[in-house]
């Protein structure tokens, strides 16, 4: 029997078609335009270093909009697919569970990459005279952050039954991943009460299976150039390793699910 490919092009196309039908890309682009305009307005109010303010505010808002837009689309798309039994219909066709999950992940990752690149080009177009290697690193890390988060959203929407709880779980994960360095810093400072040792151990364990999103998309790269400690290799490794981890978890859940 011929084995099925891991990623089905038709399924990937189905995901992208759904995104276009739901006007995801246009919607996010409109929001990006609004956020960038607001950032230009706020940044121009600074009495000095206006270009730096505009770049930082735009980058910060663009990053959040990417995550919010992508996560909401994925969560509601997957939950709708379960509720309308689209998933079961597809599994009744010659589509394996692994192929389904990986194809969806590939489709979402493609959309995430596209949004990351569009957002990065917006930031570069705002202040072309400030463009440096830091911008390229920032765009790469935005793409990787988007890809990680779309796969996390896919995972949560597979295992949780309510769209609202999936959304909250994904956003909570994002906030925790971005703030993990602060929590680890508090733990490492050693200024903690004795009875919090167990909590420290729990947080260390949780952080070991979380991505270090605080090291990605640093707006300081847009102002001062790339960080010597964080390079493209780390960013790509973080994306590949964590996406693999979360997709494997989703695959395990999908394999064990009874339809």
């Amino acid at each position: 029997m011929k084995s099925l490919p891991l990623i089905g092009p038709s399924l990937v196309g189905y995901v992208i078609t759904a995104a276009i039908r739901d006007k995801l890309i246009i919607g996010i682009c409109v929001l990006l335009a609004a956020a960038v305009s607001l950032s230009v307005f706020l940044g121009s109010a600074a009495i000095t270093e206006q270009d730096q303010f505009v770049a930082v505010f735009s980058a910060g808002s663009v990053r959040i909009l990417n995550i919010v837009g992508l996560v909401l689309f994925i969560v509601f798309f997957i939950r709708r697919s379960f509720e309308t039994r689209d998933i079961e219909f597809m599994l009744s066709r010659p589509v394996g569970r692994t192929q389904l999950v990986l194809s969806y992940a590939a489709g979402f990752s493609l959309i995430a990459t596209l949004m990351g690149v569009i957002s990065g080009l917006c930031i570069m177009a705002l202040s072309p005279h400030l463009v440096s290697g830091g911008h390229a690193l920032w765009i790469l890390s935005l793409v990787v952050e988007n890809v990680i988060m779309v796969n996390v959203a896919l995972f949560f929407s597979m295992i949780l039954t309510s769209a609202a709880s999936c959304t909250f779980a994904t956003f909570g994960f994002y906030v925790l991943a971005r703030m993990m360095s602060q929590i680890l810093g508090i733990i490492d400072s050693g200024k903690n009460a004795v009875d919090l040792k167990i909590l420290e151990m729990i947080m260390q364990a949780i952080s070991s299976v979380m991505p270090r999103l605080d090291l990605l998309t640093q707006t300081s790269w847009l102002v001062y150039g790339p960080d010597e400690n964080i390079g493209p290799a780390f960013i790509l490794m973080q994306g590949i390793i964590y996406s693999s981890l979360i997709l494997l978890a989703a695959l395990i859940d999908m394999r064990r699910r009874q339809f």
Partner: protein
Amino acid sequence: MLRVSQHNAALASLFVLFTLSIALNIALWSSVRSIQTRWSNVPPTPGLSGALWSSLGDPQLAYRGYGLMIQNMGDTGGRIINLGEYDYNALGRWFRLQHQLDPHSSFTPFVAGYFFGGLRSRPEKIAAIVDYLELAAGDGSGEKWRFMSHAVFLARYRMNDMNRALELAQKLAAYDNPDMAVWARQMPIFILTAQGERQAAYEMMVNLLKTEGANLHPNEVNATLAYICEQILSPEEAALDPLCKDYK
């Protein structure tokens, strides 16, 4: 027919109630129209970790966001607050937080020195600005030394604290920055002259000419000679001084 008239009556009652609720809302709005938010002065400063929470762990975003907030603090919502009403100690804490978030940017030192430093006749408040500018100048690299020179200016002319001005001027003169202006290196001499320490000022200025005279622009050499012969020395002393013999 009866059903239609009942429907119309119900719809009419709904419209009446709706109009009444709008009128009530307008009345409530009118009763509190004059109540505005009050300026409660400079807010408490969060810690570094707390500050980073607001920007999801991005120090640069937190710096710029807080920077714009500090710049516009007290002047939003149609208000304009006199600089003298600000809590400068609290402002100093905000400036130090900004320094932790980004020690390289010149935005916060600029706002601190040239905006909040514009306060006159309140030397006790200016001290917080001077302390921050001393911190922000760092090692004086790049253009940062200019913030130290502004701190000297504030200490001398706003705080009227010559000892503090001299301490800062000596730090300024000691910066290892070849691009720093000559007058910045001469700052301790200016302070000493103002304090009446003319002998010390004379010796420092002559030493400066001996060690760096070859690297100075002729105009700077002339300006330095002019300062020695016209500011430090009296006319009688200048007439006897060999440096001032050829100076006109």
